[in-house]
């Protein structure tokens, strides 16, 4: 830790930032320490475990879907309704309950206070409530598997009118509980989001200016601001759809014949729901992507032992993407019918948003250029992310154009596109980040050999799954179909390809078990890591204890003297200089605090 704080102007010592700047909550029992905890680190672990558990359910659902697609008619326990239910739940869980919760609730809670040099989140009690409301939302969601009629099969977009009409699976209970669960999720997230934003704004330690924040914090911070402003749209849409379903209002429901009878609805606009849904839905893509962008920047810089290229540009790009992502939503609605000039406008904004995104990709590559690249497991996943994200982003340019999107819109091409850009790419970052920060959370390293096996199977497998899927889409193979049947434009080879994809998907899925085994095994048997195994600069690696104790920083808060990317500084004794190391003794060896 810092012994003699340094003042650049007068040379006088700055009085250390003493403890009482926040009144810490003190757990009194095992229950308040580990269960109803207000410590952001515990809440982070609770969020991560809950999100991973429900994510595993979604993974199993994807296996069931693949079994049906690869070998149609073979499995009698999957019928058409169930297939639709699997699709819906898989999509909703992965996008909202897994990725959003994991990046913001999990990584956000763990990393924000540690990286900005705070003792905890600013509103710990609200933070605790956030987790419990999230857990309730997950339980309500999971309960739909057991109610009469099962979960909703409306597709993850829940488009009315079909979402609440009879004939759609889960029309009784599934859709109601799904909407209730979403409303709960949004309430819980808002509580957590307030914490993440205000902690970054108000609880940064001395010297931690915005431009000295690690990009991880910038990514999570911007994504949280976006989520706070975008989730209300889903909230409004869910409340109105729920009223349509329960009270018979006609916000979204047009007059139509249901089961041979004129329904009670009339005059509503399904397009209105689509606007609300995608006003949330498109920012959601970047709510997941921006934390991934931030984390991957830090992984690459640390494991290539080089400062991040174009830090300022990276920050500006994050902010620009955050702002632009609110004016592209209707590119999800090209085939829903809209005024042609709107399509033109949204195609243009969609292409513009590729610019800041491309800047980020260039900067990652330029950070790697002539770096001292260590092919550690986190680095492998970070590299896997860049490649996958570029692949998925390029097909996004195809789909962003109206004339290309219209024929491809309902095909497997779209499925391949968003799984590359929003499924595989962020998951690569999640996995890389877990390998990177696991030592800080547990004090032990994950097994690197198993990790490398895990990476190569996952990375190669993801490409074997999703690359052929683009081709299927170009052939015209439709998405969301339970069975393809005998269509002239689908050659037998496409069916074989589907079977191949299924085999690979199951293999990759089961390979994830090595990761779960690694997580548990390393907790007890992993090599002790010390405080800073990657020799990283940012504050979370400089805590006096590992895993960080309650309050994070012993008696005094750290004082920050530099940005987070002082790697391989010429003339410095070590190839990294921690953020809290005063400038006078850059040459002196300051070992990692342990």
């Amino acid at each position, binding site marked *: 830790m810092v012994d003699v704080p340094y003042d650049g102007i007068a040379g006088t010592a700055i009085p250390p930032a003493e403890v009482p700047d926040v009144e810490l909550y003190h757990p009194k029992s095992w229950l308040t320490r580990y269960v109803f905890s207000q410590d952001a680190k515990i809440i982070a672990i609770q969020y991560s475990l809950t999100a991973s558990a429900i994510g595993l359910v979604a993974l199993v659902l994807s296996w069931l879907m693949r079994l049906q697609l690869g070998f149609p008619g073979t499995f009698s326990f999957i019928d058409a309704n169930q297939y639709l239910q699997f699709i819906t739940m898989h999509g909703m869980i992965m996008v909202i309950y897994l990725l959003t919760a994991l990046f913001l609730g999990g990584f956000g809670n763990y990393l924000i206070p540690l990286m900005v040099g705070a003792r905890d989140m600013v509103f710990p009690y609200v933070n605790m409530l956030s987790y419990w409301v999230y857990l309730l939302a997950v339980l309500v969601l999971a309960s739909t598997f057991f109610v009469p009629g099962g979960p909703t099969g409306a597709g993850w977009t829940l488009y009315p009118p079909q979402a609440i009409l009879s004939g759609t699976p889960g029309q009784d209970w599934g859709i109601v509980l799904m909407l209730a669960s979403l409303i709960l999720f949004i309430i819980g997230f*808002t509580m957590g989001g307030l914490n993440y934003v*205000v902690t970054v704004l108000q609880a940064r330690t001395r010297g931690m200016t915005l431009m000295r924040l690690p990009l991880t914090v910038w990514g999570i911070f911007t994504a949280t601001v976006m989520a706070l*402003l975008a989730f209300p749209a889903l909230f409004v849409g869910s409340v109105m759809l729920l009223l349509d379903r329960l009270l018979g209002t006609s916000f979204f429901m047009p007059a139509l014949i249901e089961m041979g009878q004129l329904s009670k609805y009339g005059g509503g606009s399904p397009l209105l729901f689509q*606007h*609300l849904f995608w006003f949330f839905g498109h920012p959601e893509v970047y709510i997941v992507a921006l934390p991934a962008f931030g984390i991957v920047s830090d992984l690459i810089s640390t494991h290539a032992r080089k*400062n991040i290229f174009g830090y300022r540009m990276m920050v500006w790009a994050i902010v620009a993407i955050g702002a632009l992502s*609110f004016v592209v939503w209707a590119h999800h609605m090209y085939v829903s019918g809209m005024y042609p000039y709107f399509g033109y406008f949204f195609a243009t904004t969609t292409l513009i948003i590729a610019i800041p995104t491309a800047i980020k990709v260039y900067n990652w590559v330029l950070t790697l250029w002539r770096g001292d690249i260590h092919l550690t497991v986190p680095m492998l996943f970070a590299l896997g992310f860049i490649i996958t994200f570029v692949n998925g982003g390029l097909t996004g340019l195809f789909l962003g154009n109206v004339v290309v999107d219209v024929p491809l819109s309902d095909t497997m091409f779209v499925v391949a596109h968003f799984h590359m850009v929003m499924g595989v790419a962020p998951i690569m970052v999640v996995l890389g980040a877990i390998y990177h920060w696991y030592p800080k959370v547990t004090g032990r390293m994950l097994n690197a050999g198993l990790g490398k096996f895990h990476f190569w199977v996952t990375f190669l497998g993801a490409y074997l799954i999703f690359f052929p899927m683009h081709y299927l889409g170009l052939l015209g193979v439709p998405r969301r179909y339970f069975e393809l049947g005998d269509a002239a434009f689908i050659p037998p080879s496409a069916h074989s390809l589907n079977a191949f994809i299924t085999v690979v998907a199951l293999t990759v899925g089961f390979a994830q078990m090595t990761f779960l085994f690694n997580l548990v095994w390393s907790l007890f048997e992993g090599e002790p890591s010390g405080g800073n195994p990657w020799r990283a600069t940012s504050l979370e690696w400089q805590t006096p204890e590992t895993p960080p104790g309650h309050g994070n920083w012993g008696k005094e808060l750290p004082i920050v003297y530099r940005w987070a990317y*002082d790697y391989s500084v010429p003339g410095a004794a070590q190839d990294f200089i921690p953020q809290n190391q005063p400038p006078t003794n850059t040459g002196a060896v300051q070992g990692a605090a342990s």
Partner: protein
Amino acid sequence: MSAVILFLGVIAVIAGWWLSQQRLTSKPWLEEGSIHDFPGTGAVTWPAAKVGLGVFLAVAGCLFTLFVSAYSMRMTLVDWRAMPVPKVLWFNTGVLVLSSVALHWAYIAARRGDMDGVIVGLLAGGTSAITFLAGQLLAWQQLGAAGYFVASNPANSFFYMITAVHGLHLTGGLVALGRTTAKVWRQDAMTAEMRLSVELCTIYWHFLLLVWLVLLGLLTGWTNDFVDICRQLLS
């Protein structure tokens, strides 16, 4: 969706102004040293709770603006039949204004350190807010008695839904107000923490009053001309 785009535009201007104060063009890789060398980039001097309330108001504002957006899109469809305005809404609006004024009174008293004034202001504010909520329920009852049910026309559905959401926000505010009142009740002298609580309640009340006035204009159709003008400007 133009209302919510406009709202986000305002948020973006505020965020942009704030970011412009944060030296986003600095070159952190050259700026090693103590914070005093690089002034003006610390945290805002506001208390965290106040910043937190500000962020929450942005979220709540976004929520209400989205309801307004949905309302203005839905009202152009052919089946829309405007609803009569229950007279009691006038009374309710007056009571809500009173409530806001009373809380502002409490806020001023808190700054002066006048404990009795704070208690009176908080109690008056709380009572009139509860009266407002009761008045809203009365309005629902009158509409129901006159045959304007929630599902009989989209205008009705929006009326019930939006007033309910506004009422729920006010109810949440009443919980905070109750806690603040209890805190003030138990103390003999004003503390900075209590002053902050009173101030936050007052800000929230003014916000909800503003939201109510906008919603009232929309629900009663007074702002229809304005909405039409905006719509023509856009298309």
